């Protein structure tokens, strides 16, 4: 495949200037201004730009934020836990951002982005992103989104649904991963979350005020893969145990050791990232006129979608 810019393709940089409308958008973004960051993340989410298009090496101070992944099955209270973590982290002086991933409907492509009770009390940046068909627990744009956000914040909390064998890519994106569960019977803890258990740097037993919490903690301590991992009990609704959780996460991220990744996971990660990168590059070389032509042709019924994209793809390979 031979990709180089088509003669009349708009260069990305001036297009960005047009898109952001504020002249000093690069400075605003470097400062972490919410509006500009929100729009920047949309570009990343839709594979139109990457971090290096949006930030210069020397525009403003660059932070090297710690990325904490919070994962676990639905109903574990992840959102409530994050809402409790944020003010604790802010009190410690951290500038905090939250990226929350939700699954998309395979049938319709739509998504209900979790109803997150947002507390006005905290000043964190919170952004929801839908998986859009991506398997693995986050979204295809996740690595790039995290890459941008960690330059701008001290602490980035990434929330994903993690309930099975395959929703484990959070471990590649985050510095450390906390797996959240709730008190349940022992079989559930060990069996249903096999796979998830292996990626945990920290375990959290939330809703620890419910019966069975001690038992769950005991089982985790006794488990083969889980025995050496810190286990914390929290009650997210009251904030109990949350400062200790933050401490444990930060400590674990400092002690991060090399982790081997399975070849399956590696292949998935490469394929996903390559597809995203190719789409991004291809989008650049298709002029706006061609886009509009293709859209018109398909909506007028002159062309099926397959033929339209064939034409567009050929442009990028000629």
């Amino acid at each position, binding site marked *: 495949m031979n990709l180089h810019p088509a003669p009349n393709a708009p260069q990305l940089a001036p297009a960005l200037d047009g898109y952001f409308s504020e002249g000093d958008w690069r400075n605003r973004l470097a400062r972490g201004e919410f509006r500009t960051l929100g729009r920047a993340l949309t570009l990343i989410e839709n594979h139109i730009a990457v971090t290096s298009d949006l930030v210069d090496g020397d525009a403003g101070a660059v932070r090297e934020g710690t990325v904490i992944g919070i994962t676990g099955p*639905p*109903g*574990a*209270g*992840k*959102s*409530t836990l994050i809402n409790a973590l944020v003010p604790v982290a802010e009190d410690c002086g951290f500038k905090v951002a939250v990226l*929350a991933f939700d699954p998309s409907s395979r049938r319709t492509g739509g998504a209900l982005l*979790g*109803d*997150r*009770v947002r507390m006005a009390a905290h000043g964190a940046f919170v952004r929801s992103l839908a998986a859009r068909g991506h398997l693995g627990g986050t979204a295809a744009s996740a690595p790039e989104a995290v890459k941008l956000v960690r330059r701008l914040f001290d602490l980035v909390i990434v*929330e994903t*649904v993690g309930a099975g064998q395959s929703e484990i890519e959070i471990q590649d994106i985050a510095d450390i991963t906390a797996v959240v569960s709730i008190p349940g019977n022992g079989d559930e803890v060990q069996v249903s979350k096999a796979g998830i258990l292996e990626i945990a740097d920290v375990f959290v037993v939330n809703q620890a005020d419910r019966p069975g919490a001690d038992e769950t903690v005991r089982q985790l301590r006794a488990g083969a893969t889980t025995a050496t991992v810190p286990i914390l009990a929290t009650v997210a609704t009251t904030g109990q145990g949350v400062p200790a959780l933050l401490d444990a996460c930060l400590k674990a991220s400092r002690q991060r050791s090399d982790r081997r990744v399975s070849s399956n996971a590696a292949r998935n990660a490469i394929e996903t990232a390559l597809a995203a990168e190719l789409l991004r590059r291809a989008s650049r070389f298709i002029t706006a006129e061609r886009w509009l032509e293709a859209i018109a042709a398909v909506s007028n019924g002159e062309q099926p979608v397959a033929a339209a994209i064939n034409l567009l793809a050929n442009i990028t390979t000629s």
Partner: protein
Amino acid sequence: MVEASVVPAKAATGREQWEADFSAQADGRPRFNRSGIRLQPIYGPEDWCAPQSFDERIGYPGQFPYTRGIYPAMYRGRGWSRRMLIGLGTPEDFNRRQKDMLASGSNAVNFIPCNSVFRGYDIDEVDPLLVGTCGTAVNTLEDMRIAMDGIDIAGVSLGMNDPSPFTLLAFILLLAEERGTPWSKLSGTSNQADFISHFVANHMFYRLSLEGSRRVLVDHIRFMNRHSPAWNPLSIVGQHMQQAGATPAQAMGFALSSAFYYIDLCIAAGMNIDDFVHRFTFFFDVSISFFEEIAKFRAGRRVWARLLRERYGAKAERSLRFKFHAQTSGADLTRQQPLNNIARVAIQGLAAILSGMQSLHTDAYDEAIATPSARTARIAIQTQNILAEETGVTDVIDPLGGSWFIERLTDQMEDAILAVIARVDALGGMFEAVRQGFVQAEIGRSAESAQLQVETGETTVVGVNKYKVPDTDDHRTPVDRPNSAAIDRQYDRLARFKQQRSQAQLQKGLSGLAHAANHTNANVYEAVVEAIRCGATHGEVVTTLRRELGFGQPLNLAG
């Protein structure tokens, strides 16, 4: 249905002949009611006849299981309370409208405070644009004094729509003290004490955390039972569920399950069932699904009486009586061609009467879109008056009893209600079922299904998806708004009240309240009344208890 092949060959029976003729003429479309029960085209003795166990299943009014009514004489002894909702503007506005209603046939109070009050605020904590639009702004004892001026609070039953911590009732108690009326003479209901229903279906009313609401409710029940034995400190609200989209059977099933939850709470707090449950009452929607509603309530009475005996060993007669207030369902009313709603309300009201309710509010024709004006409210009360006094339907108790259809439908509704209760039981009771989101999901499914049926035209809504007319000014109802000068005066009044009271007394009252909240052997509601006696406002009481007992948030089921 009798199968022809089973009967030896002879002349066709009337039933068989009818079935053949019916099939030839009928459109073949099956009919279902809102609870999903299939309706036959006709019912006869084969479908239901007075069972051997007539006394167990039907009985007479005032006798277990109360299917036909909870009192022997029903409306021949005492009519139902014509309890019209009133809530608008300032205390003066309330007073004027209430007197108007009392003169027009209403004989009980049904007080709706402003949304700001529901949310636990005094008016100086919210945007003035929102004050007095849908309820009366009452923040202080002084406000209640004005609202009830010239109204004999011991002479009428008082329905107070005010959730935990029941500050508005506290105003009434202190007003009674001022007037020399003993608390034991007061009768009425704490209409919004059912916090489970708020959790599920009407979050506006949910002020304190779950634990806080629980604590205050138990203390409130104890306090009112002691001081005001004719007061119902808990009304379980099936209406919220049905308004949110629950089918009639679901609304009854969930309400009864909620009642069991509250009974368990009181028993755990050391109370004896026959000492408190007779003061539990219910509040339901009555929809325009005419026969279904009647069957729902007949079944509800029967289920309540039986399960109170079976589950709780309740012995006293009074414990087994299912008392309820009914409100005609606003969800059936339309914005289009609003005058049509008068017909709808009349039919819903008739269903309520034939259901044997103890108290009734009939909606004004514009109730779903605005706060009723004096004019539209008067039509609503006259509707009740006409039903009660012109139609003759109150001359006979449970007139539909014995109808093959109604008795069969009552049995079927009972089965459906019991099925809902069983599912809730299987999840560990109503609280667990709500916490796990089961109740909300079931209601959501029913709501979606109902919406779809309207959008496809399968369900007809006259004026909305059939028999539509262009939207002209004729069909628009003018909207009453609070007078902004009067609202300004209300702000001034509150400011003056706050300024003129003793700060020392206030601090004493509020710290006493905080103390009671933190000590389980204290009665929080007693401390609420005391705090108000010390000059606290509604908002100050709620703020204190939110701080000590937790701020109520809608249940967040995600993640």
